[in-house]
């Protein structure tokens, strides 16, 4: 690693995590809150990989694979909820659809 101790990565991770945390607490836009949580998750991933390097174990990297997969599933569900919310009161004009179909 040369000059670059694990602390550097941990600090970077902590800063990104706190930025995300603040964003969740301060912003009101749903989608930006969602982005902030994703940022927090990514910060956690940096920590996990850095700790893995520090302890010479691969468990941290394995953990990241799982957090990424879980984040993807969470994103699908969350964006589904947001889409469903945005669709309130709007429906497609069924007649138009019929005419466009064939």
């Amino acid at each position, binding site marked *: 690693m040369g000059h670059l101790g694990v602390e550097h990565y941990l600090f970077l991770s902590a800063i990104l*995590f706190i930025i*995300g*945390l603040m964003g*969740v607490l301060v912003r009101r836009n*749903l989608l930006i*809150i*969602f982005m902030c*949580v994703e940022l*927090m*998750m990514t*910060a*956690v991933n940096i*920590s*996990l990989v*850095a*700790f893995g390097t*520090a*302890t010479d*174990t691969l*468990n*941290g990297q*394995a*953990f990241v694979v*799982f*957090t990424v997969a*879980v984040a993807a*599933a*969470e994103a699908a*569900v*969350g964006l*589904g*909820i*947001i889409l*469903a*919310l945005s669709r*309130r009161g709007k429906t497609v004009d069924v007649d138009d659809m019929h005419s466009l179909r064939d």
Partner: protein
Amino acid sequence: MPLDLIKPEWGLVVPQLIVFFLAIILMLGDAFIPRERHYILLTAISIIGYVAAGIALIWQYGENKATFYGLFRADDLGVFLGMTILVAALLTVFVSASYVEYLEGRMPLGEFYVLLALSTLGALIVAIAGDLILLFIGIELSSLATYVLTAYAKRRETSLEGALKYYLLGIFASAIMVYGFAWIYGATGTTDLTEIARVLQASVSGDHREASLLLGLLLIIVGVGFKMAAVPFHFWTPDAYDGAPTPVTGFMSSVPKTAAFALAIRLLVQGLAPLRDDWLILIAILAFITMTFANIVAVAQRDVKRMLAYSSVAHTGYMLAGLAAYKSVSGFGGTGSGDFGISSVLFYLLAYAFTNIGAFAVVAWVQHRGNGLDLDDYAGLAAKEPLAAAALSVFLLSLMGMPPLLGFYAKYYVIVALLDAKLLWLAIAIVVLSAISAFYYLRVVAVMYFSEAKVEHKKVSTPLLNIGIAGMVIAVIAVGFFSSGILNLADHWTQALSVAQAVTP
């Protein structure tokens, strides 16, 4: 270079596999069975599946092994928690079938059962997990399915908004919790709970604590607090409980909550036992704040469902008090005498599943008759529907802690454990707050029995729901008499700490 394929002991995984296959079969059934027959067939499949899983789980009682490189722990803690989860899931099926099929504009039943099974499976996995990673995945599986279930009445705006709030705070809490996991992993170099405990035992001695360990502990408790809806982290609870379809509310208040407590027990008691002195005080404070705040706010609610939501938060506080009464089991790895604190939490979770799902079941029953959730909708219920009113009264009195109902025993054991652990102030707080809670529980009972009816009831037949409610009433009244036996079973959780250290690959 071919890997050595592992040969896990599949026999230990049978209950989880049954629920897994239940989810798969339900998925296929949803696709291939005609819609008209979903109601009968899928409900039957669900019930059979949960019962079978329960039987398989009982079969494992007394096992004490680990497999999958220590990821999977077959021990009595897992069995007891698993039974609680399966019972709650089974009761939810009874309550939800007709609700999903007939109310809120007929929601798709197949996906509902699939998500229910997946959420249950996630909770079951938390209950047997022996590794940080599996704990995380299990709790996320449970939560993720519950987010969708909360939004299930997607034609109703409150349902979606409650789900959104639940979802955003849920993933926020997960991020915080995983950060805590990362710190624990960094300090111990492993994700296996037994290993973590062993490493900590060696490094934590005297008063010196690594700041990083305390930070990890703090982050984990915040994350778990969100998941179990303890008070400073409960913002999502009223909206999500209120917005979700009523059977889902009952489910949410038992299964994901059991999963969160399973996570707390597995992680704090099993993995972080050497840091006991640090987390016990945090949990005790959290318990006190939670029950005080929730009980006081609940008094102001006129909406029955919302009142039950706050009551659910208050009960989280009581359970946390039980967790705080954890003393020690003669050092890590010992098989010393049973600890009363954790046993009381386990018993409370089981009792709470019957009682709370029962209360929400009656709310759903009233909704079936075309009525709302306001207190006025319950006025004079006793005159028209004496049985329903009696059932709701039983559940509410049990929640309040009226002897000889199930809820009384649950609270009683927590108080005994607290006294045992010399936490007198917390025990007194529980007694005082139970007295306050009597106000809002009894108000509903009073309205049902002593008010004039203001609304009309539709005639609806809901056989399955009625059977479920009857079963829960009987359980709440009768199970209390076997409480000491159940508590003895719960006491075997200590074996979890002495699980075979040599991990079978």
